């Protein structure tokens, strides 16, 4: 689904983002030339399997990639037109947690075990706003209440290990949203949770997003969540965006064989499949991406060109692009 071009620049505009990790086995290009945009208030999915680079992408947006990883020259991340990669240390800190916030996958490890949760929220507030300790604490309690934690005042002085998994994830949300960011990067926010809790958290996130009017980049491997919660989606494979489309479009007519494969590979609750269509082979390691199209060794349709030339993102329909030569040569699709 692609509406008319927005009058203002998109909220987030990532261009040619490349992140390298240098290790003893050579340089791993974990994220390779990623382009993506998020409009204000929009929920965008970033989907892919482990090791595809989706988490690194999120970290790179806030320049949180740590050595031995580094963001390559030529990448750009613009937030409301401002290039985050060009900011000084102090300015980027002013963005983190304030304009753009991050929610992590493992709420237990993302919360400092030795600090009270109320404190951890309050310090996020105090990092960006000149408020007193007392005010910050009061606002922390308010945030905890907002994310549905009962008896928030008392819970504020609890430690992470004293809370259940769902509660911890709520705390993380409260921490991320404490400064009312314009954009939330939610990295697998519910993967560690049971389905019933996952549903609660996603409902909560929906509600908060509407209330705060923020945009969400929802990073996940779960196609179900993507289908239910996002308007647009990017599919990542081996460090690259391989497909980009409106969500309905993607599920209705996937253009990239990898996307297709994923959809065919998952067992469905709503229908009984006799046999799953598995994608053969393994995700290659980041140090040894294949030549040409990175999916070609696992692709049922691949032909010689796929092994030598890397396809660019090709437009399938307006707003729907796929990194596959099949877009140009659909006749090569095998039945």
């Amino acid at each position, binding site marked *: 689904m692609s509406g008319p071009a927005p009058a203002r620049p998109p909220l987030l505009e990532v261009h040619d983002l490349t992140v390298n990790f240098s290790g003893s086995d050579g340089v791993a290009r974990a994220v390779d030339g990623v382009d993506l945009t998020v409009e204000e208030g929009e929920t965008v999915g970033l989907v892919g*399997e*482990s090791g595809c680079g989706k988490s690194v992408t999120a970290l790179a947006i806030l320049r949180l990639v740590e050595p031995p990883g580094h963001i390559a020259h030529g990448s750009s991340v613009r937030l409301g037109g401002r290039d985050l990669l060009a900011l000084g240390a102090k300015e980027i800190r002013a963005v983190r947690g304030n304009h753009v916030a991050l929610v992590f996958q493992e709420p237990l490890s993302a919360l400092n075990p030795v600090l009270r949760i109320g404190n951890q929220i309050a310090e996020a507030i105090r990092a960006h706003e000149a408020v007193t300790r007392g005010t910050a604490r009061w606002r922390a309690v308010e945030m905890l209440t907002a994310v549905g934690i009962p008896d928030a005042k008392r819970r504020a002085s609890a430690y992470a290990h004293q809370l*259940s*998994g*769902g*509660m911890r994830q709520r705390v993380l949300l409260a921490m991320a949203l404490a400064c009312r960011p314009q954009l939330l990067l939610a990295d697998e926010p519910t993967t560690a949770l*049971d*389905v*019933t*809790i*996952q*549903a*609660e958290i*996603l*409902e909560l996130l929906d509600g908060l997003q509407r209330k705060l009017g923020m945009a969400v980049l929802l990073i996940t*491997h*779960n*196609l*179900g*969540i*993507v*289908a*239910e*919660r996002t308007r647009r989606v990017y599919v990542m494979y081996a460090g690259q965006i391989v497909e980009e489309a409106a*969500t*309905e479009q993607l*599920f209705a007519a996937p253009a990239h064989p990898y996307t297709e*494969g*994923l*959809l*065919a*590979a*998952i*067992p*469905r*609750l*709503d229908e*009984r*499949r006799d*046999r*799953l*269509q*598995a*994608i*053969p082979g*393994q*995700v290659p390691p980041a140090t040894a991406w294949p030549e040409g199209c990175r999916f070609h060794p*696992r692709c049922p349709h691949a032909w010689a060109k796929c092994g030598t030339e890397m396809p660019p993102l090709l437009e399938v329909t307006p707003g729907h692009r796929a990194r596959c030569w099949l877009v140009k040569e659909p006749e090569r699709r095998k039945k």
Partner: protein
Amino acid sequence: MTATPLVEVRDLVTHFTHRVGLFGTRREVVQAVNGVSLDVAARETLGLVGESGCGKTTLGRTILRLVARTSGEVRFDGQDVFALDLAALRRMRRRMQIIFQDPDGSLNPRLSIGRAVREGIEVHRLARGAEADGRVEALLAEVGLPAGSAARYPHEFSGGQRQRACIARALAVEPEFIVCDEPVSALDVSVQAQVLNLLLDLQARRGLSYLFISHDLAVVRHVAPRVAVMYLGRIVEHGPSDGIYQRPLHPYTQALLTAVPVPDPKTKRARVVLAGDPPSPVNPPGGCPFHPRCQHPGKNESCRTVRPELRELAPGHQVACHLADR
């Protein structure tokens, strides 16, 4: 229920004591499995679903006597597993195996894949020398690992391949029954399908029985014609998958099913959202274990005080709920 069950579990209870607090000054009893009965027939797969902490993993391990039971009984092919002496137990273990969730942790990183697979062959003296090598090679090929894998070590394989190796290790002793404890939940979507297909193929080829434990309802539906739903150490619903998935009778099952996101943007479903977290198995609530979270409009006093037993509401479809009706 199917005739002549291979595995019969009756009123199985497994409690753990563990120490908590600084220096373990306090004891806690975790009521992991709290009176479970179920059967698995030969060549059949029974799916067991439940959320983390519900006791499904403990149940699987207790059946294999990897964990001591507190009471109740497990019969395998008519023999009481807990009555066996150690030698007999070892013989019995040839016939029942287990596959774990985490392929990293279930392979000894210091043993090559070949030696890991060979371990069972050697323990039960099924073959020796070159014959054993041949068997290992064949098993590895059967689970789809490339030639030459035997000499390699777990860290040289991907998660999916490691899980294949685990399957090969379990198959090495030619078991009849395998407890599959979340065998695919640590795997990527694309690989998950490979392993599920492999398990189904093996079952067809070797006539295996599975107890398939998972938190993923979609996966269970895919592999198991019969499903048991576990909550806080008890089975709350049990029956043919089609029945359970299309017409869940227990409020918990209903909530579970509606919570699972469906990868289809066009389906919009009404969702039963549960309040709060599952209670701790250290201190399970009285009455119906689910009652504190239950959203059933008819919730009443007996839910709080009387524990519902499994009732058969449709052929083969049992549910432990006072309020459920067909």
